[in-house]
């Protein structure tokens, strides 16, 4: 199982803050995970293709090739606006 987290505008758009997901065998990296989630429909397709979308694995920002083996915390979030 991986623990999915969504923040800020992304969470509002998807109406989802957190979800536990059993990782299908064929999904081995973050880009493939995004593709899988996009198959859920237009809402997901649109939200997960927003400009500047960040993905973090175990609380570290990474690129779409980052590998997944199950058990990770994967967070998707929009560009940050603190300070």
């Amino acid at each position, binding site marked *: 199982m991986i623990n999915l*987290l969504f*923040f*800020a*505008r992304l969470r*509002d758009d998807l109406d989802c803050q957190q979800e536990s997901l059993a990782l299908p065998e064929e999904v081995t990296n973050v880009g493939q995970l995004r593709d899988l989630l996009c198959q859920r429909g237009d809402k997901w397709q649109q939200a997960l293709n927003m400009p*500047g979308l*960040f993905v*973090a694995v175990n*609380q*570290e*920002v990474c690129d779409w090739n980052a590998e997944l083996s199950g058990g990770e915390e994967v*967070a998707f*979030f*929009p*560009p*940050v*606006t*603190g*300070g």
Partner: protein
Amino acid sequence: MIIVQEQDFDLQAEYSALREDSPAIGAIVTFTGLMRDFNQGDDVQSLFLEHYAGMTEKVLEKICAQARDRWSIQQIRLIHRVGELRPSDQIVFVGVSSAHRGDAFAACEFIMDFLKTQAPFWKREQTRDGDRWVDARQSDADAARRWQKD
């Protein structure tokens, strides 16, 4: 010292903590970010600051470690508030003490520039026309890029 908190902070207390009666310190630079009541042409009544607990602290630690690698710094104190804020409230504090002002000025600005573009905080504004998420600014990305070494 890095703290993410809902409560306000006291500038004098932070300054005193940075000073720590050490004769090795020749300069203290502090920055305080405040909430404006105006953004993108609209009156903003209040602001909600969301963050990714856990990751936020890790990112801030990393930024401060990079500043320490780059400049000679005695102490860093960084406070970022979360939750509900009103116009003119203090949002963020960065204080750096050092033997010389050049290091303290540079490190303080470096920390703020990277906090703005890397630390997972998000602002949601409440205006008369409803709530909206604040968009990231290109000028902040440009400010962080200035620090890249050739």
